């Protein structure tokens, strides 16, 4: 209530003074529920972002169908700069696995904001002391180590890359969404799952085991957790979050959005806040982000193909 009043007040105040963009609130569609990683990251980001933009930015959670419901809504919105979309890697995977018809090419990239490195995590009741023991076991008994994942999404693709690189075979069980996956891991109903640094508290308490992190170098927060690369598994993986606008958004508007994003993303205070969420700021401008998305898209297509999930 208070929010919408504030929006109204701002909208009224802005309207006569500036005819230029933005003269009314901008809707930032987050295709996942409130309180999830994406939501938390963008709600933090939005505060500085809207200040630099000189207008109000409202985060709208449009969850459902593996994040594709929000994607569809964003794609069908008028390309006037008043609707922007918080995208992550699942846009590629859900397209290639046939969950939705929306792909990144339906949008114009604004900027890449963050990267959250994935950690291969084991359940507390598993016998393995480290990643090596787990891999040895998985090699000895193919298809018995269970992995919980949102099928066709990032939490499925990451263990699948490990599977391929290490030459082992896992068994996948569908747990949609991070919360369900973490519950199953805590109760040892699955052996392995993808998690990230936000679960550090539970790992420290012995409620789950961080086996290996998919970064190039070890992270300062968890110096004892080896990288997959150290273990001879050539996998780097992170969930990358950026901003895009519907295709056809005017260049001057794109420029304004891009400039505001650059300022907000490179603000040291933002990096500090992101640390708490196990997330690294990884800023790329529109051009760099376009190249990034193109490359990421090809990687995801190849992965979907190798996993036998490719539907296009």
């Amino acid at each position, binding site marked *: *209530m208070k929010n919408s009043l504030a929006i109204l007040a701002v909208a009224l105040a802005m309207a006569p003074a500036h005819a230029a963009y933005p003269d009314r609130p901008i809707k930032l569609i987050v295709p996942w529920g*409130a309180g999830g990683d994406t939501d938390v990251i963008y709600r933090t980001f939005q505060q500085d972002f809207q200040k630099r933009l000189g207008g109000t930015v409202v985060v709208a959670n449009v969850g459902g169908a593996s994040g594709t419901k929000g994607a569809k809504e964003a794609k069908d919105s008028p390309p006037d700069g008043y609707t922007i979309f918080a995208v992550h890697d699942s846009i590629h995977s859900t397209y290639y696995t046939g*969950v939705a018809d929306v792909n990144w090419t339906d949008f114009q990239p604004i900027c890449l904001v963050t990267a959250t490195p994935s950690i291969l995590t084991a359940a507390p009741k598993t016998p393995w002391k480290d990643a090596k023991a787990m891999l040895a076991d998985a090699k000895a008994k193919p298809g018995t180590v269970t992995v919980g994942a949102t*099928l066709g999404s990032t939490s499925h693709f990451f263990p699948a890359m490990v599977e391929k690189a290490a030459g082992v075979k896992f068994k996948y069980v569908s747990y949609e969404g991070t919360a369900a996956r973490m*519950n*199953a891991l805590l109760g040892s109903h699955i052996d392995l799952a993808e998690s990230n640094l936000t679960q550090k508290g539970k790992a420290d308490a012995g409620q789950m085991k961080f086996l290996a992190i998919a970064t190039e170098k070890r992270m300062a927060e968890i110096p004892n957790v080896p990288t997959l690369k150290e273990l001879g598994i050539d996998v780097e993986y992170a969930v990358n979050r950026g901003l895009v606008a519907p295709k056809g958004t005017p260049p001057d508007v794109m420029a304004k959005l891009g400039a505001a994003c650059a300022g907000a993303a490179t603000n040291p205070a933002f990096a500090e806040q992101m640390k708490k969420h196990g997330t690294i700021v990884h800023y790329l401008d529109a051009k760099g982000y376009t190249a990034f998305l193109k490359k990421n898209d090809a990687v995801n297509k190849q992965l979907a193909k190798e996993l036998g999930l490719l539907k296009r």
Partner: protein
Amino acid sequence: MYGLLWDAIVNLLQLKYLLPLVIGTVAGVVGGALPGVTITMTVIIVLPFTFGLDPLQGLAAMTGVYVGGSAGGLVTATLLGIPGTPSSVATTFDGFPMAKRGEAGRAMWLGVWSSLFGGLIGGVVLIAATGPLAEVAVAFGPWEFFSLFILALSMVAGLVGRSLLKGFLSGAIGLVVTVLGNDPVMGQPRLTLGIEFLEGGIPFLPVLIGVFAFAQIMGDVERIGRGGTLHESLDRAITLSVSHLKVIGEILSRPLLLLWTSFIGVLIGVLPAIGGSAANMMAYDQAKKLSRHPERFGTGTPEGIVASESANNANVGGSLVTIMAFGIPGDAVTAVMLGALTIHGIQSGPLFISQNTQIAYGIFAAYLLAHPIMALVIALGARLMLRVVTVPKAALFPVVLVLCVVGAYALGNNMSTVYVLLIFGLLGYAMVKVELPLAPLILGVILGDQIETNLIRAIMTDADLWLFLTRPISGGLLAASVASVAFALWQHRRQRGRELPDEEADDF
């Protein structure tokens, strides 16, 4: 734990939490007192107003509605002989005769203090049991959850309504509704007929609003104009002044009765989907069976009021246990609260209490604080409430309906949820007409996805289907579902001989 609870209570005493709690409690008491407006409807109406609040503020308001509503019904039940909600039906049996004898104050305050004590006993269970039960729930794998949900469905289908077959039919309709939309694992569209509206599936809150508000009000609308008017009974001079010490003494001098009926209330609350409407009747029945003077029941005996009112408030505590530990709504009101949690981005389930400690204890604190607030609200407002309940239903129902539609719209800020409400309102109305119970339908809609998902997870983890029976907890739960169906069959056979008196509409 007690430190946490203390902190939560102190935290809640801040104006920003206390205000929504008080407003919620007032709304609950008034909604509970209004005949034809159930606690479920009240909570549905209050929900959209909490969207803009922070999660704890919103949940404090909802908890207030729940506690206030469970007590508010007694005002009309004792003073006018009309149950304000289905959960105060049994209160009329002895409350109204006592009031007619000229002891209106004693009848009402017996109810209020019993609600308070029953509620606090429920609170003790809530706070003591939720944590341990949540730990048990983490150990629940897909097999156990599947079997638990099956048990919930079979119990509701068996225990609610008069026909087992109709109960199962209603539950099956609910399950079919959950098949519409994308499948929960790979997102393949099912039975969507190419209609985009159906692709996301059917959300349960508008279904619930349609079935429990729209369908029920339509039934009540048909009855407008029949029966006596409230004004006549109001014309009698009512004195509500009473010695509170004496009334409290009357309740506490029957500690076993109070404990036993509160326990029944808690137990029925813990069991999924059987709400306060069953709790007060069962507690009354038990009190009568255990009493040395069963013949006095129905003539204005204090035991009857104590039993009914302690049970329906203790029931609230029990329902909150189930939703907080397992993420299964104990009744329609907690189903709305489950929706509220989701809207505020909080995942209910086994980890709720450990991951959202502050909010979990905030709910405990709100529950405890709501009870004295409720007593205060009734003390100050009972007379005023008697004026409100005489508002003609022809004016009241349209307002409630409009608020329900606005609430449904606010869920997603689009019309599709309103259409869902309309469709399920009509379906629910048709079901009321052919005497199909509504509770199993709602539980089917809520649990259908969960049953399917856990079945799939179990099989993906291990293809061996015998695990459902050989895992001890899962096997035990399945055995319990078979037993509950057998029990229902036996009970229905036994009752076939003697016809039951007219049952009130179920609150869930």
